[in-house]
């Protein structure tokens, strides 16, 4: 909206154009107000007592321990940032509802950041073919889908960092766009440095909250460092960037390391995760080694027993959880959760050190011997998200809240949780209210329009990605090549040959959207090339 504001300031007296601008701005801010009021109503009409699940203990227990006077430390291999925030909230407000309230506000702020980022992106097009009104309307539409969907609201009610992660994702988008704006479009060295520092710190916090965001963090931080180092002059700014961002990141890392020193789960978490989620491949490798007699590292008898147990457990969980993990074909979490789980029994038999070595050995041994099986597993998992029904967009129409509270109560009813919660007044009240709410019979229905938008987005996500990313790549090649480069030509020539060879096969074997995607790519780029020289 910046340029619009500029337009308003420039107009000294009332003219038809300024009137249109004023009406446009009024319509925009009215739409923003309606969306945010509606989003706030959707959030705050629900009970504010947060929901717990099986992972909640890892986030909540450090805060509860500190509140009852014990030491704050890691539990179940979780980080310290989210539990630390929970501790501060519970200490300040002495009410568990503060968790949901703050997370709801973060959700609304994320919607605001969505609009701010989208608005700033318009400045990257100095001569846009699509006018500003249409651009703004697309942004409003996106913010409305996010703010009015049930998925984010459900996350904001949970005691886990997913809602906070969504906020940080959007914050990183915003600071990144701001960084590029002040670095490239409207150069301002110091503002660029400030946004650069913000990117580095936010990216680190996001990766700390959820380690799966590590690649995004590395990508964003590496880009920023490269751009700052390559900027001409402003030596003091570069020193300030490293002088501020680096100590903060190092301090957070040291705190994380210090607090996790007594958490045994932190050491076991990654090896156990890698083992159980690749258990099928590892079991096949164990069986192959037993067959070939290559069992020097472990005794043959023990390994035979372990292999049989693993096979039995995979089969058992396949029958029980085949719907939850269709691609994997078994329930990996069941191999390690519970005192009677397979991994626990191995840990008892081997001891901590040998058990850790066992997990690491079999994972890396299997990676070395069956790399294709691992690639196949990764491709299968990528296919779960990059499918014709992208799971990022919630398709759930009904959300029975009483069921969620019943599960929450079950998660909080472990003896350790009950003991700690009953020691603080806010904990006892929280338990009582959760117990009441599980009989509340509240069912949250997703708005039909929002539901349709979610379904359409889920269905078209892959097709749009497959059309836009190769096209964007082609533009990059075209731009970076100069006159004599032949890469774009070869790229299109190769695509054309491949399509000619396989188009019929593709249409038969893949679903309709993938065929449509190839057609679109063919039409958009290849056809244009065939049409000959450009004549305006």
């Amino acid at each position, binding site marked *: 909206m910046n340029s619009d504001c500029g337009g308003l300031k420039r107009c000294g007296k009332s003219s038809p154009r300024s009137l249109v601008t004023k009406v446009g701005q009024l319509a925009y801010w009215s739409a923003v107000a309606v969306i945010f009021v509606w989003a706030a109503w959707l959030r705050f009409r629900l009970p504010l007592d947060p929901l717990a699940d099986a992972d909640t203990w890892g986030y909540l227990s450090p805060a509860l321990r500190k509140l009852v006077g014990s030491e704050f430390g890691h539990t179940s291999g979780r980080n310290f940032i989210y539990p630390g925030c929970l501790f501060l909230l519970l200490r300040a407000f002495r009410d568990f509802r503060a968790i949901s309230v703050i997370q709801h506000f973060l959700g609304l702020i994320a919607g605001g950041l*969505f609009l701010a*980022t*989208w608005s700033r992106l318009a400045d*990257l*097009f100095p*001569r846009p*073919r*699509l006018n500003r009104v249409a*651009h703004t309307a*697309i*942004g409003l539409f996106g913010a409305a889908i*996010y703010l009015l*969907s049930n*998925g*984010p609201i459900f*996350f904001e009610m949970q005691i886990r960092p997913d809602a906070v992660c*969504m906020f940080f*994702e*959007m914050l990183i*988008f915003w600071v990144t766009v701001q960084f590029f704006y002040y*670095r*490239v*479009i409207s150069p301002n060295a110091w503002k660029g440095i400030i946004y650069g520092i913000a990117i580095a710190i936010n990216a680190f916090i996001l990766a700390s909250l959820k380690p*799966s965001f*590590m690649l*995004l963090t590395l*990508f964003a931080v590496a880009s920023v460092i490269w751009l700052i180092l390559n900027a001409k002059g402003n030596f003091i700014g570069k020193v300030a960037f490293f002088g501020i961002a680096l100590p903060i990141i190092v301090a957070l890392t040291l705190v994380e390391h210090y607090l996790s020193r007594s958490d045994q789960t932190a050491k076991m978490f*990654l090896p156990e995760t*890698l083992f159980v*989620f690749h258990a099928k491949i590892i079991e096949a490798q164990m069986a192959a080694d037993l067959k070939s007699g290559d069992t020097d590292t472990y005794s043959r008898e023990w390994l035979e027993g372990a292999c049989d147990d693993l096979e039995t457990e995979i089969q058992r969980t396949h029958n029980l959880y085949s719907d939850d993990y269709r*691609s994997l074909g078994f329930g990996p979490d069941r191999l390690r959760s519970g005192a009677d789980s397979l991994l626990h029994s191995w840990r008892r038999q081997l001891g901590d050190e040998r058990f850790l070595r066992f997990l690491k050995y079999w994972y890396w041994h299997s990676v070395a011997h069956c790399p294709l099986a691992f690639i196949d597993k*990764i491709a299968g*998992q*990528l296919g*779960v*998200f*990059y499918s014709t029904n*992208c*799971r*990022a*967009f919630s398709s759930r129409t009904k959300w029975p809240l009483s069921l969620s509270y019943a599960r929450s109560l079950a998660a909080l009813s472990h003896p350790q949780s009950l003991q700690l919660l009953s020691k603080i007044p806010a904990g006892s009240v929280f338990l009582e209210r959760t117990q009441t709410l599980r009989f509340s019979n509240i069912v949250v229905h997703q708005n039909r329009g929002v539901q349709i938008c979610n379904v359409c987005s889920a269905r*078209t996500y892959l097709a*749009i*990605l497959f059309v836009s990313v190769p*096209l*964007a*790549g082609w533009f*990059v090649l*075209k*731009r970076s090549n*100069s006159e004599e*480069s*032949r890469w*774009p*030509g*070869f790229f299109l*020539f190769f695509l054309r040959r491949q399509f000619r060879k396989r188009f019929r096969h593709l249409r038969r074997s893949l679903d309709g959207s993938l065929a449509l995607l190839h057609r679109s790519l063919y039409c958009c780029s290849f056809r244009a*090339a065939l*049409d000959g020289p*450009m004549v305006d």
Partner: protein
Amino acid sequence: MCEKLKHCYSLNNRGRPTPFYGSTSFGNVFSISVIHSMEVNRYSTVLLIAALFAQLWAIRWLIEIGLMKRRVLWRGSKPFYVALGSVKMNA
């Protein structure tokens, strides 16, 4: 440097922001696919805001491309068959 960057990240270079926003989800999905499983619903749902933003940006960018004149679209490179040298460019 600044002019070069301006050229790279915006304006007439009509490609780069799209892979950037697509990569934010991809980095996460790839990490989870390597270590864990994307079949856990919350790993996908947490990407809603990033996926939605990337998708809308891609749509907006495709509209921009669609509205461009072909002359502008092709400025700076030759058609592939000219580059390959197999067909003579028509006058």
